[in-house]
């Protein structure tokens, strides 16, 4: 190898190393900033309107970007609730809407109307149970949801008025805007104390929650 070639390779390698250090430093800084933001009571991760499950005093917060028409969200729903229950007050679940499927925006409007009557959790349960009946991907029929929510105690007349209010519209827009900021493009999208679930799966989510619990509640 000539001296010229050596110079070339060394200077190229130097650039690549500098580039890698740059990436590492930048993503580190960004992760820290996100974790910091996730501590706030109002942020891109949680808004005052967001439904929560588990105590507000919990130091670990799972944020789930949720689409009621998404089968994986349906499958995760009992699992995530179990994760919260198993940690006995240390973990809270925050639900954010991200209606990506056709017809799921109407379903989200019904969930939001239910939340206004403090009935989000019973209604989301029946909406998910009935998912096969309203959320077919080629022919969604979210109108069918009204048929199953009768015995949740929901004031249907009031809810039917609420679904089309600008307040409900702005909640959906806010959640979609936050999903966009956080680059959530698939559902369910999970964050635990601001840390994105990179490698998707239940085991991975449970491990991330466990890790954050250990950090927040040192023995």
């Amino acid at each position, binding site marked *: 190898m000539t001296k*010229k070639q050596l110079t070339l390779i060394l200077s190229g390698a130097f650039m690549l190393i500098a580039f890698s250090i740059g990436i590492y430093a930048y993503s580190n800084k960004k992760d820290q900033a996100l974790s910091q933001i996730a501590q706030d009571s109002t942020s891109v991760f949680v808004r005052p309107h967001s439904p929560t499950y588990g105590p507000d005093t919990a130091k670990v917060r799972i944020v789930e970007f949720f689409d009621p028409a998404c089968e994986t969200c349906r499958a995760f729903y009992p699992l995530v609730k179990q994760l919260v229950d198993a940690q006995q007050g240390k973990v809270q679940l925050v639900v954010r809407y991200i209606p990506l499927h056709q017809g799921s925006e109407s379903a989200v409007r019904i969930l939001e109307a239910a939340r206004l009557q403090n009935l989000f959790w019973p209604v989301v349960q029946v909406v998910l149970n009935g998912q096969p009946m309203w959320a077919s991907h080629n022919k969604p029929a979210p109108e069918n949801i009204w048929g199953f929510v009768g015995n949740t105690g929901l004031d249907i007349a009031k809810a039917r008025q609420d679904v089309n209010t600008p307040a409900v519209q702005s909640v959906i827009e806010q959640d979609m805007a936050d999903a966009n900021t956080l680059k959530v493009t698939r559902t369910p999208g999970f964050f635990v104390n601001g840390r994105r679930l990179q490698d998707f799966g239940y085991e991975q989510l449970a491990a991330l929650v466990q890790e954050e619990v250990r950090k927040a509640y040192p023995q």
Partner: protein
Amino acid sequence: MKPAVLSHRQWQCLLLAWLVALASTLGALFFSEVMQFEPCVLCWYQRIAMFPLVFILGVGAYTDDAGSAKYALPLALAGWGAALYHCLLYGGFIPKGLQPCGTGLSCSEVKLELVGFITIPLLSLSAFSIIVLLLIAAKKDLKK
């Protein structure tokens, strides 16, 4: 005919031009992949000109091939033109109605400003200018 042998000064020009192209390429990738700024159409035209320069100039400098400056110069000039256009658009010298962008992303929206005036198109224009000057210097030497 054997390719002309590079003088030491020419080789230095090629090496520097290569380093500028490499830094610009890595910088562009940093903006889009790490900072997640989506490149607009004009940015893509500049990338199309910049990315191959890394390989043309790199191979040229590695194999001591004087011809590489000749092949790289048109690419560098094309990129320089796109960067100049983009800077004029940013600066408001070209009316926004003329911009060749689709519905998605605006080429005239300023995404990043360092020290108040350094924008991404300005960085690109500077990089292309340096590369063009270095390549012209390398070619000039060749004729002597």
